[in-house]
């Protein structure tokens, strides 16, 4: 066991070294107000931002740099007014709401406070004010939200399939699964932005490393714990420790700000019927659907897939009928991590990369898995799509910031009514 821990530590250490080689970190120092000015993912340079105290005493000013960032250090916590000088905005760019050029913010002790100014393209007509009858634009919105829900649901499904298969084969509720998404996204970021490879090259390399990481995680860590007969609850709490560790490691290496890939950042949307979508999100959805179908077919028709389902059903029986249970579990870990990493990379093309991005959808993955039935791969797929769709479509009735709440409430209600989920079987709830 000790040897295994040393090996695992060395493996993690190696990863750290790989990252350290070129990781760039931009950290704020002490109390300050700061922000990044972006329009459609592109930084906006040369905009003057002034900070004054609540009593209008000047504190300092800053001009956004080439990467759109600005920061003004302040001496003590308190309430400050942050003003964006609208005369310095480049031509064609304007504040989304011209009346919100001055924002009052609270800065707490020892905290850096992020201030966001919403920008719009002054040349483009403002969104959401085009004509059209009330009825048709409502259904346009429904169609758009269903599309976005499908998009989110597919990402959740990619994460959830691995989560569910790992649960099915080992009984582990892996709280570190969200971090596997984040690791995938940042591995691709490392090869893409730091080493300068095109994302189409960087992503496959990242997937291979992620698969190796998943394999290694089981070979040197979880597999050893299973051999020690560590209890499932212990393993669950260990996975929380691992999640904390991996997240902090990513924070250490890449900083707390948002990052983005070099390619496919800003794309003009295209209109398909009532839906407006970027080409990259359509391609991402294509990849996601293809991968999910491939996983489904592999589980149903290949020998390995059948073995996986047999192990998930009854490990002892599978073992006695000649299936190498440890090998199956290891492949499940590798494949699950690889698919989760793919989800992370695809998520990274549509939103900023952040060390918390995986953690933020972990609960949605749990919701999807529980809804579909713990331990069943197909259930996880269906459940995730339902959850993604529900999250997006619910914004028709509730504020967008509360959309996650709806999904979590549904999760709790499902557990009350049908704890085994849509496709689960009653015996699994124990």
């Amino acid at each position, binding site marked *: 066991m000790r040897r295994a821990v040393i090996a695992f530590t060395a493996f993690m250490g190696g990863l750290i070294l790989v990252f350290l080689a070129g990781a760039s970190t931009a950290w704020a120092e002490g109390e300050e107000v700061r922000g990044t000015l972006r329009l459609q993912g592109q930084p906006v340079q040369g905009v003057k931002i002034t900070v004054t105290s609540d009593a209008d005493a000047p504190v300092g000013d800053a001009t956004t740099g080439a990467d759109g960032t600005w920061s003004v250090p302040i001496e003590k916590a308190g309430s400050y007014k942050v003003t964006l000088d609208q005369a310095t905005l480049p031509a064609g760019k304007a504040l989304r709401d011209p009346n919100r050029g001055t924002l009052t913010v609270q800065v707490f002790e020892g905290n850096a406070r992020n201030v966001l100014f919403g920008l719009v393209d002054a040349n483009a007509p403002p969104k959401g004010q085009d004509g059209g009858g009330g009825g048709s634009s409502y259904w346009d919105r429904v169609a758009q939200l269903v599309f976005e829900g499908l998009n989110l649901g597919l990402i959740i499904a990619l994460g959830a399939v691995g989560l569910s298969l790992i649960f099915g084969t080992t009984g582990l509720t892996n709280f570190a699964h969200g971090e596997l998404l984040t690791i995938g996204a940042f591995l691709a970021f490392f090869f893409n932005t730091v080493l300068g490879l095109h994302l189409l090259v960087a992503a496959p390399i990242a997937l291979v490393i992620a698969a190796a990481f998943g394999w290694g995680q089981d070979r040197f860590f979880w597999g050893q*714990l299973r051999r020690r007969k560590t*209890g499932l609850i212990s393993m669950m709490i260990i996975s929380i420790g691992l999640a904390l560790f991996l997240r902090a490691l990513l924070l250490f290496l890449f900083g707390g700000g948002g990052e983005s890939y070099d390619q496919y950042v800003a794309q003009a949307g295209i209109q398909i019927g009532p839906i407006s979508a970027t080409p990259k999100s359509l391609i991402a959805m294509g990849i996601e659907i293809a991968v999910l179908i491939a996983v489904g077919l592999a589980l149903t028709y290949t020998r390995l897939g059948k073995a996986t389902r047999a192990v998930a059903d009854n490990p002892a029986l599978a073992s006695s009928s000649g299936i190498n249970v440890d090998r199956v579990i290891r492949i499940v870990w590798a494949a699950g991590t690889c698919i989760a990493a793919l989800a992370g990379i695809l998520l990274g093309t549509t939103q900023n990369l952040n060390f918390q991005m995986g953690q933020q959808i972990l609960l949605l993955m749990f919701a999807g898995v529980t809804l579909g039935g713990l331990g069943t791969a197909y259930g996880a797929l269906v459940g995730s799509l339902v959850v993604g769709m529900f999250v997006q479509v619910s914004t028709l009735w509730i504020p967008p910031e509360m959309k996650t709440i709806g999904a979590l409430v549904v999760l709790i209600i499902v557990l009350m009514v049908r704890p085994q989920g849509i496709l689960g079987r009653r015996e699994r709830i124990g």
Partner: protein
Amino acid sequence: MDWTLIISRAVEAGIGSEAIIYALAAIGLNVQFGYTGLLNFGQAGFLAIGAYSIAVTVATFGLPFFLGVGIGLLLAAVLALLLGIPTLRLRADYLAIVTIAAAEIVRLVVRSVALSDTFGGTDGLQAFSGSFYDMNPYPPGEYGIPPIIGFDNRSMWVLTVGWVLVAIASFILFMAMKSPWGRVLKAIREDEDAVRSLGKNVFSYKMQALVIGGVIGSMAGFIFALSRSAVQPDLYSTDLTFYAYTVLILGGAARILGPIVGSMLFWLLLILIGTGLENAVNTGTITFITVNQVGAIRLMLVGLGLILLLIYRPQGIFGDKREISLDAR
């Protein structure tokens, strides 16, 4: 390296408000997880309910402080009931997922823009602790043992109230766990079916443990809000729950002193390492990291500590390995 400063900060953290907050949160978890074997991963939600009850009652509605305390205790009990009804009959990890989801719901509700008139949005609420500090018997000044320990009179008041709460909660728990009621809880942890076959209502006992633990958690929320004179939604994220678990397992689950010693030691070590590294970076002793990366290193150590504790010493400092049943049923 300014060793006086480093040791002073560490010792102050070890007996300061952080240690109290996490000790209370972990005592609540101890009732649920340590004694009864229930996995509550939503303790942060109970703390948030306690903290926001005081803040909203006083700052938003202008009602008396003690009404806020009462509402906090009541709401924590109600939340525990709501969570327990659907999940206590199911397997342990269902309770874990539901409680973690519930804690996130609480946090997302109080930080939402739509309800910011009531809860203050992401900035939270301030100006609600006046009547608490009006009761402060300590005259202004510095208290402590210079040069190591020094608190102002406001902190002294928080520390006094906080440690008295910890002592009361621990004493009640000590008496309760020696009673037949406590033995039933421990028996449920060891073998639920055996207890059921003896005619005990397992569901009811589990529910009582969940409610008591949640109410103690809301007390931790009171101290959290009052010690900072402010509430901020993102302080009540799931990480808080997991730190409380680390504290509990470090000290030893199913032991009265476990959460208390665990919390003091956790904060002593965390601040010792954090301030030490910060100091080393500032004075140029360590050059390859920046001051802000120290925070990330601290977090990594918490995660690593939790992993290593569970692998090599799941019983923590005081616990008994045979008694710690860390297995799903």
